């Protein structure tokens, strides 16, 4: 069963065609990597998959529902309920502790639950850093908080934008281990990356060039 289906997606900004006739299916529990040089349309594609932008043409089917014509308000609700976002720059709220940063996602989704948020931090190995502010955490630790925050509302899809782009080798390994664990648990993951080593961990790699799908490379099973 497909969790995400892009049908003939195009995105046009004035005279610039950022995406052209993209067709892609992502099945439930799949780990997909998206690669491509700068300007290839990666950002536009994750904006559309992440419900932060709408395609000029084509349809986006997420969890069985066509969301390509939804209003910005409806897209916010879809994003909140179905997508967990992980960013290259971590993006933590700097005046909230690690635990509170996770609880913020619960707060906007439904009800904050301190115990559950703590369990999410323990899952990424940061139970003892729950009361620390972002400024007291390393880059790798901040990214793990970001993963805990993305997972807290049990999303259908994890969308990670260059999740290891700002990490050293050790922390990159830790983050990839967490992703492997999530994949084993059946969570769908889409990772946008420049790093071939990260892409190799996925089941398939979609390579974008000039706003088109240049090739789809199957990796390992």
């Amino acid at each position, binding site marked *: 069963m497909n969790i995400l289906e892009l049908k003939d997606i195009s995105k046009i900004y004035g005279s610039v065609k950022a995406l052209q006739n993209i067709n892609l299916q992502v099945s439930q529990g799949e780990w997909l990597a998206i690669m491509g040089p700068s300007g290839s349309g990666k*950002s536009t594609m994750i904006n559309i998959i992440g419900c*932060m932008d709408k395609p000029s043409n084509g349809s986006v089917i997420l969890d069985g529902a066509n969301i390509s014509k939804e209003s910005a308000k409806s897209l*916010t609700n879809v994003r*909140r309920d179905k997508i967990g976002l992980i960013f290259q720059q971590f993006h933590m*709220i700097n*005046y909230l502790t690690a635990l509170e940063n996770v609880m913020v996602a619960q707060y906007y989704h439904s009800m904050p*639950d301190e*115990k559950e948020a703590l369990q999410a931090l323990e899952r990424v190995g940061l139970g003892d850093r729950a009361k620390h502010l972002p400024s007291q955490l390393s880059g790798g630790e901040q990214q793990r908080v970001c993963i805990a925050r993305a997972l807290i509302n049990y999303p259908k899809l994890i969308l990670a934008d260059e999740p290891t782009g700002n990490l050293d080798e050790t922390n990159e390994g830790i983050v990839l281990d967490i992703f492997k664990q999530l994949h084993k648990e059946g969570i769908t993951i889409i990772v946008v990356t420049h790093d071939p080593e990260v892409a190799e961990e996925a089941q398939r790699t979609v390579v974008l060039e000039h706003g088109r799908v240049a090739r789809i490379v199957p990796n390992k099973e």
Partner: protein
Amino acid sequence: MAGDPMKKQTMYFRMVTSSLIRRRSRMLVALLAVAIGATVLSGLVTIYYDIPRQMGQEFRSYGANLIFIPSGDGSALSMDAADAAADFIPADDIVGMAPYRYETVKINEQPFMAAGTDMEEVKKTSPYWFVSGEWPENDGSVLVGQEVADYIRLSPGDTFTVTGTDIKDESFSRDFIVSGIVQTGGTEEGFIFLSLSDLEGLMGNEGELDVVECSISASQTVLDDIVKQITENVEGVTPRLVKRVTQSEGTVLTKLQALVYLVTVIVLLLTMICVATTMMAVVAERRKEIGLKKALGAANKSIVMEFLGECLFLGGLGGLLGVVLGFVFAQTISVNVFSRSISFQPLLIPVTLAVSIAITALACLLPVRSATDVDPAIVLRGE
């Protein structure tokens, strides 16, 4: 496994207070703007309402503002009628009431005007009198006007003899000691001031007055009301306002209050601009945070409520600080300018708080509205 959910309000409160406490260097600037505005506001409002009292006291230095004279039938003003009229003046407002009886006496066969009065009350109704020597404290000692002293060459401590005829046409003669020489710059310098009892002793009768000078600390409206009451209720007394004092007092007060009012309005506007500018800067530097919250699924309403919560907190805290500092500010001004302390007005607490919160909320409205325009996609661009 899930635990007990926290109330959304608790998390909201935690987010708002954390933002204020953990970003204190930024928020202190905004708090300072609100607190300074609230301080000047509460201080000026305190002064605004205290000016009539303070200036009323100040104006009393310029002499009586109400006089009692006999009714037009030619008879003297009786002490009883003056007392009855005085009953219509609120006791707390009376600064002083000096009775005067004028009689012609002779010194070295030269006629002079003698005024019998109550020296302690004269000190209160005419504080501008300049006395060389001492104010009389005993019967037999007098104040002599500068003109009289120059004419018959009297100095403090000198003794002189007063002669004349009393109401029964019988001659009298009595020695008095000059206690002090009085300068007023007015007609008083041609008078000899002795105690009322001394003058009554010389004239052989008592209970008759020519005029009572009253110094009352009250507004023009209250004074008008007192005059009306006395006119309607007391016979034998004609109350008259000393217009040059009461009218100029009213004019100065109105202008002074208008000035303070204007300054208060300008301060409020400046505070609003200052808070709005600060909040715009706060929103601008928190665009990524707003984008992140929207990316996490925050509705525009939630973002607005969070910023408004911070604004209201700032307004409330700044208002509270303003109440305390404003009183200190008003007290300092009052002590230094008017040499008197002022009393705290409890009503100022809710008023200052409400105005501070309203001004802060109003100032935050524009930047907060712009906060909702932030595109959540900014967090995905790796900026």
